[in-house]
């Protein structure tokens, strides 16, 4: 069964097709959410919620879903944004926790050396939702610029600007953190 057939069956609420669709996209959504949130349990919950929303859409016979992956990532992005909004209302308690994460990096870090995920989360949490969205799409999904632009709903040029500024802001934040940590150490 190819993807189109699978998706068609899933739309007809075939439980087997829905199960296969779930398994096929679970990692995709989980990875996207994981780039934006540090709490693993929350990542799992949001990922599950995305599939429940998909089911609702199938029940409603929502014909607006042209690209199911893009649709689900869009839902995941909204759920993450909702989570951040609620967090900001709670005076960014969790973000404060991230401040105390131990740094595993130094300014002497070599190129290509991976950033620690906790650092990524710490820096990501300080970017705008659009910047987070673009970076998570580009680096969690390996999406092209065009694909990212479609999911984000912006022009290619706008996404180029967004990703440049997002990477620059992230680097600046990390350097400040690293310098601060090294200085205090």
């Amino acid at each position, binding site marked *: 069964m190819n993807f189109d057939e699978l998706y068609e069956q899933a739309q007809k609420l075939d439980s087997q097709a829905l199960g296969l669709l*779930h398994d096929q996209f*679970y990692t995709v959504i*989980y990875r996207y959410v994981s780039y934006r949130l540090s709490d693993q349990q929350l990542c799992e919950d949001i990922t599950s919620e995305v599939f*429940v929303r998909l*089911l609702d859409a199938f029940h409603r016979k929502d014909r607006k879903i042209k690209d199911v992956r893009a649709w689900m990532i869009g839902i995941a992005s909204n759920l993450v944004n909702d989570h951040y909004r609620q967090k900001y209302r709670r005076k960014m308690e969790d973000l404060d926790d991230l401040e105390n994460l131990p740094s595993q990096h130094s300014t002497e870090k070599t*190129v290509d050396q991976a950033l620690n995920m906790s650092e990524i989360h710490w820096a990501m949490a300080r970017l705008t939702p659009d910047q987070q969205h673009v970076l998570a799409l580009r680096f969690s999904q390996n999406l092209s*610029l065009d694909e990212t632009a479609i999911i984000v709903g912006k022009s290619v040029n706008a996404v180029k600007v967004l*990703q440049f500024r997002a*990477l620059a802001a992230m680097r600046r934040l990390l350097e400040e953190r690293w310098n601060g940590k090294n200085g205090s150490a």
Partner: protein
Amino acid sequence: MVKMAQPELNSLLEECLIQLQAGNSVKEILAQYPNYAQELRPLLETAAGMRYNQSNIIPPTEAMIRSRRLFVTQLTMQARRQSIFHSIHLRLAVSMTIVILLVVGLLSTGLGSAAALPGDTLYPVKIALEQVQLNLAAGPAQRLQLLENFDQVRAQEVNQLKTTDRMITVTFSGVPSQSKDGWMVSGVKLKVSDSEATRLANWQASVVQVTGETDGQTVNVTNIQPRVLTFSGRIQEITADSWTIDGVDVKLDSSTKITGTGAAGQQVDISAQQQENGQLIALNIDVHNENNNPISRRSPVVDETSQNPVSTLTTEVEGTKQPRPTGEGHPQATPQPGSENTRVSTGTGERERTNTVQPSQDPNRTSEPSSNQFEHRQTPIVSPSKPSTEKNPTVRSTNQ
């Protein structure tokens, strides 16, 4: 370092990211753009660091299983909800269908009954619907209009029955007229006895109610009487010779008997005879007292021997509680004017009447109002008068 405009720099970064995604190292990429290495390096290093983590993010198998289970559970629950929703909808749909069928059935019966003729199964439905219309009418004026319409319908029915050769008892109303072929009412030829012909001659200006059996081209009359309508309402205007009651003008003549003193705004009960030109001539007007009760109802006395209700209204007005004896001066069921010592209100004052029976100013006026033959037309406001033999003391028009 060569300075580059921001748009070009954005595009250059994108080219570098594509190479990074293709698997090239940051060092390899920067080697291609040595003039911009200083600007690109921190961005590409950050991007490479983020990209490196991608492969490390693997969802826990248990989480995936839990999510799948939740997904399937939701599917079952939603299917059940939908089934309940559908069953509720189904029940609603069935209920609505029944209601619609009932309404359509009633409507079609009503519509079907519109063409029904006396003797047809649906004819009582037609009459009942007319009664409903009369009951729903806004006031006496509208009811009178409806009655006129229904009179035309009755006459049409009788004319239609001529072609069917059915022997059916019919009741209809209209103004009698005499031609070379004999007496006619509403275009229907009547077969009448001599005595009835004599009476008809006196009623040529009044609306009469005819009951009889269809007999080919004619109706063999069994009963014929002038139609008297009774209704209640509030006095709107009083002039010397007419009162306006809820939009209906009622003329007064010398035979009109008024109990109580009328004034604008007061509630009255009226019985009146309908004339050829649609005018109503009042036979009796009973003005309600301050308790909104007709004065004539205060102390009704029924003369058991005569089998006719004898209201004390005249003596009541005079201040005496003694019932007026029945006799020659009080023809039975006769709205003739001139009962003894009756005080008649003209709206502007009161005048004494003589104690002798005066002849009616209108020679066509009758002392025999029609009996209750328009059962379906009787409404609390506008209806033919009650039979004179009723002992109901509220019936006042038939025993003057």
